[in-house]
């Protein structure tokens, strides 16, 4: 297995990389572990003391649930695996309060007891209050997993086969026509020859329009063991943290499986 890091943006929230010499099963396992098993914080229970805004309690609670909260994985454990046996304690839950009287209520108005767990995007509007309207609530955030609800999923993650385009020049009659047919502009003509524009190669989505245009001279992806992964964090965790935690969780799952096998007769 070989891993090549492609890009990471300044915020370290988005990343992409290539993994070589794995099969689709492993690629998909990694994707599913990231979406389903990486724990993050999200608001689960909302106790509303006062709300005479335009929005119903349920709508506000739903909006709060979807807010991404910055997550500190070291100081919290998943509620169902906690020593408190799912009752909720300081190790698995966190109380946050929101109290506001006028204007737009933003996610930044939340008062959290833990400075490490706050809304990832402070400018998110929650509800607009008119004169005389007020809102007061206590929200309980907890560590959860994406398999229970998508609000606990840490990121968008997707992969594709790494585009490999093999061009044999022999019988391409009209290179310009092949260039025109590519929707992503991956191909170009250089001194009468059909070439790949290396800067744009990663945009190729293997639609095979070029191979249809020149069936005997262009071949796409004869190997299927190289994958390009893309990770776009929702804001709770950094891209690197997400991958590392996903691999830890996979290791844990496999050891549970191994134990189960050992008890079998």
């Amino acid at each position: 297995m070989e891993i090549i890091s492609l890009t990471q943006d300044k915020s370290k929230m988005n990343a992409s990389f290539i993994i070589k010499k794995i099969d689709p099963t492993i690629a998909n396992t990694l994707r599913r572990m990231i979406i389903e098993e990486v724990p993050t914080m999200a608001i689960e229970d909302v106790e509303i003391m006062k709300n005479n805004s335009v929005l119903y309690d349920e709508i506000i609670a739903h909006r709060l649930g979807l807010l991404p909260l910055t997550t500190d994985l070291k100081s919290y454990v998943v509620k169902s695996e906690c020593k408190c046996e799912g009752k909720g304690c300081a190790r698995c839950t966190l109380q946050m309060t929101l109290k506001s009287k006028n204007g737009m209520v933003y996610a930044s108005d939340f008062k959290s007891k833990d400075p490490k767990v706050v809304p990832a995007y402070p400018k998110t509007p929650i509800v607009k209050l008119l004169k005389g309207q007020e809102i007061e609530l206590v929200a309980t955030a907890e560590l959860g997993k994406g398999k229970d609800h998508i609000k606990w999923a840490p990121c968008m993650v997707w992969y594709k086969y790494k585009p490999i385009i093999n061009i044999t020049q022999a019988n391409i009659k009209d290179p310009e026509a092949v260039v025109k047919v590519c929707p992503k502009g991956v191909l170009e003509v250089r001194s009468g020859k059909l070439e790949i524009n290396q800067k744009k190669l990663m945009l190729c989505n293997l639609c095979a329009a070029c191979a249809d245009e020149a069936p005997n001279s262009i071949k796409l992806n004869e190997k299927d063991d190289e994958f390009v992964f893309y990770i776009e964090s929702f804001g709770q965790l950094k891209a690197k943290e997400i991958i590392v935690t996903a691999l830890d969780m996979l290791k844990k799952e496999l050891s549970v499986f191994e134990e189960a096998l050992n008890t079998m007769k």
Partner: protein
Amino acid sequence: MMIPVRCFSCGKPIAQHWEEYKERAENGESRKEILDSLGITRFCCRAMFLGHVDLIDTAAKFKKF
């Protein structure tokens, strides 16, 4: 009513960009350029902005049951 916190299709949080988007759109900037500069690349998220109508001020005039 209010802009949804996340994109309906892909789940990306988008609501934090709404006020900037609204202000810039009112100043006559092209919507394509605003969305490009906000980093909203997928058409599902872009549609959330293009199709949204802020109705909370209108709805606030009526009584809630």
